[in-house]
């Protein structure tokens, strides 16, 4: 008797007991679908996170930060410790074959502005022309801060589209207008500053991305209050030399990011910070930050895997139980088959095949359900993905293996039934 006939027989049996078969499969369905769901979700989130980091200048962006040494003697950071224009130019020149651009912010001032008797918070940031590439902003109208703005220390600014609409009615209507801001403070030293709006940037962060960024400490909502001005202007307003606490270096794509970053860090520490008693330089890559998401995903995956494992075990025991019931119910049929000449092996195979079919159907339903649930969640996040083919094949194979493992005992019991006793069974 061929496997094909056994499969047909098993399918007929499952059809005859639809509800029972479905309930039997439930454990397998839940187990497999959770594996597939988490795999789909993790692929979606990974793609999403990569997308976010890409819009942050991509994985080639390396942040160099001033870091206090373990044996630091000072708490306060002095100007000598900070990144100077000399350092920036030195990096740009020395590593010109490896560095694409350097962006930085030289400081900020919290201000307010008034329009139609409403007061709005704004934060002025002194930036260079590359700053825009680092964040997920597009220019909606006009232009961003340029080198020439910075050289002149011009009183120009780039505002967000939200601000443009609130303060000037429309994005294009804001261009050329004057933004008047008042520095926050105790009032005695309050400055009133006027800037000409030369550009409007589009705030293009979706809710889920914003949520995910908030989770790792980036308050996206506060960004729409950001107003960008030339860093030279900012230095003048803050009455300080050209220093910054950090620089972001964008390494030419395709190069070994960690290698170049280490090279730059070592160069800076050896050249500029050797004699510094308290501070030196460290760097952070996007990859390091992404690994945090991977860790979170890994933890969730681990928990789900345990749940799936337990579910599959319970499901397998359920299958074994129902197969034992099935063997008892069909004792007489087994007796007849034996009387007609079925060897024990044929009976054993018949029941193992039935068990495998139940589990395989359960596995297939679980895979489809998992892809469905994963992608429904994906629609909310705004990105869909399929699970890994290897995971699908593995799940399918694992379902079959469960069927074989938990079907063997009942099938063997059926095979060993005494034909005379079985024929007499009522």
């Amino acid at each position: 008797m061929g496997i094909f006939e056994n499969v047909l027989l098993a399918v007929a049996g499952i059809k005859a007991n639809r509800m029972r078969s479905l309930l039997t499969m439930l454990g397998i369905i839940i187990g497999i679908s959770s594996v597939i769901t988490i795999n789909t979700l993790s692929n979606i989130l990974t793609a999403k996170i990569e997308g976010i980091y890409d819009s942050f200048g991509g994985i080639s962006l390396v942040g160099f930060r001033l870091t206090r040494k373990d044996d630091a003697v000072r708490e306060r950071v002095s100007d000598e410790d900070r990144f100077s224009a000399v350092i920036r130019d030195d990096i740009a020149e020395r590593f010109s074959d490896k560095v694409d651009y350097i962006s930085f912010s030289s400081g900020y001032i919290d201000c307010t502005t008034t329009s139609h008797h409403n007061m709005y918070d704004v934060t002025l940031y002194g930036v260079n022309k590359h700053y825009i590439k680092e964040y997920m902003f597009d220019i909606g109208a006009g232009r961003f801060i340029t080198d020439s703005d910075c050289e002149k220390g011009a009183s120009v600014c780039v505002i967000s589209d939200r601000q443009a609409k609130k303060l000037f009615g429309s994005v294009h209507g804001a261009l050329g207008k004057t933004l008047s801001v008042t520095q926050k403070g105790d009032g005695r030293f309050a400055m009133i500053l006027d800037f000409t709006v030369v550009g409007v940037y589009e705030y293009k962060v979706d809710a889920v991305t914003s949520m995910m960024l908030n989770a790792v400490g980036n308050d996206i909502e506060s960004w729409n209050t950001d107003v960008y001005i030339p860093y030279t202007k900012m230095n003048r307003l803050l009455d300080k030399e050209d220093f910054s606490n950090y620089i972001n270096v964008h390494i030419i794509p395709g190069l070994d990011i960690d290698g170049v970053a280490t090279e730059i860090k070592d160069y800076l520490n050896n050249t500029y910070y050797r004699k510094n008693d308290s501070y030196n330089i460290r760097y952070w890559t996007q990859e390091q930050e992404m690994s945090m998401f991977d860790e979170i995903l890994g933890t969730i995956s681990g928990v789900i895997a345990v749940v799936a494992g337990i579910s599959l075990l319970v499901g397998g025991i359920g299958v074994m139980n129902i197969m034992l019931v099935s063997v008892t119910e069909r004792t007489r049929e087994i007796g007849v088959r034996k009387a007609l000449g079925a060897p024990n092996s044929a009976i054993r195979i018949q029941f193992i095949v039935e068990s495998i079919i139940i589990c395989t159907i359960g596995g297939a339903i679980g895979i489809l359900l998992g892809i469905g649930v994963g992608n429904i969640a994906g629609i909310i996040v705004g990105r869909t993905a399929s699970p890994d083919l290897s995971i699908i094949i593995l799940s399918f194979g694992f379902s079959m293996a469960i069927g074989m493992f938990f079907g063997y005992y009942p099938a063997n019991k059926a095979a060993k039934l005494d034909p005379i006793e079985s024929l007499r069974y009522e």
Partner: protein
Amino acid sequence: MKKSAPERIDNGFVISARDIVKKFYIGEPNELEILHGMSFNVPKGQFVSIVGQSGSGKSTLMNIIGALDRPTSGIYYLDGLDVSQSNDKELSAIRNKQIGFVFQTFNLISRTSALKNVELPMMYAGLSAKERRDRAKELLEIVEMSDRSAHMPNELSGGQKQRIAIARAMANDPSIILADEPTGALDSKTGRLVMDLFHKLHREQGKTIVLITHNNELAAETDRIITIADGNIISDSDETVTQLPPIMQRHAQKKQSEQAPAQGEFVPETIAAADGA
């Protein structure tokens, strides 16, 4: 120890049973002897009925004839082959190819069409799908059930089910058709039809049929009646065939002496008893 291929002895008897004893063990010291040493032969093409009341050992004898069970001692030749020492796997093959069972309660496999039921023994015999289908259709033609081939058992009447079961019994062209109270669950009219079918198969196809029944009227229709009571044959309407042919006697004697040397003298005694009766 490896089992040698069974020796086949052709003698014209489909069934040769010699001193069949069946004991059941109910706990160590208690043994219950159901069959006390039955000997009989059935020649090819005979329609024989085995009659006995319930508890006579009828069912136990049927199980042994049908290769569902092995005798505790004694020798059983089926179509010239000694099957009394066969293992489970060999018994399966014997049941599959040599014996066609017809049961009182039909025992068709549920949720399986009439055609597929008839195909079942051929499936276990390893015939191809086409061979099975052709043969099954042919058999349904013989039992006049061609128009019901796609029906499920629960869509058939008792008489129809039994005819399907008879077609199934003949699937692998077995040496004997073993019918256990085949009309027991049928009304007298359909029972008559089923009996007529057996007569037709016997007459037209030359089938050897063993009918087990407690109905003396049905038994009277057959070529020969073997009556059993309390585990013994108490009468046989055709005692001429009870004796083993000489070639088989020698084989049986040799085998018996190998098995139990102390009983080596049983053959002459049995022959003497048969001669004297």
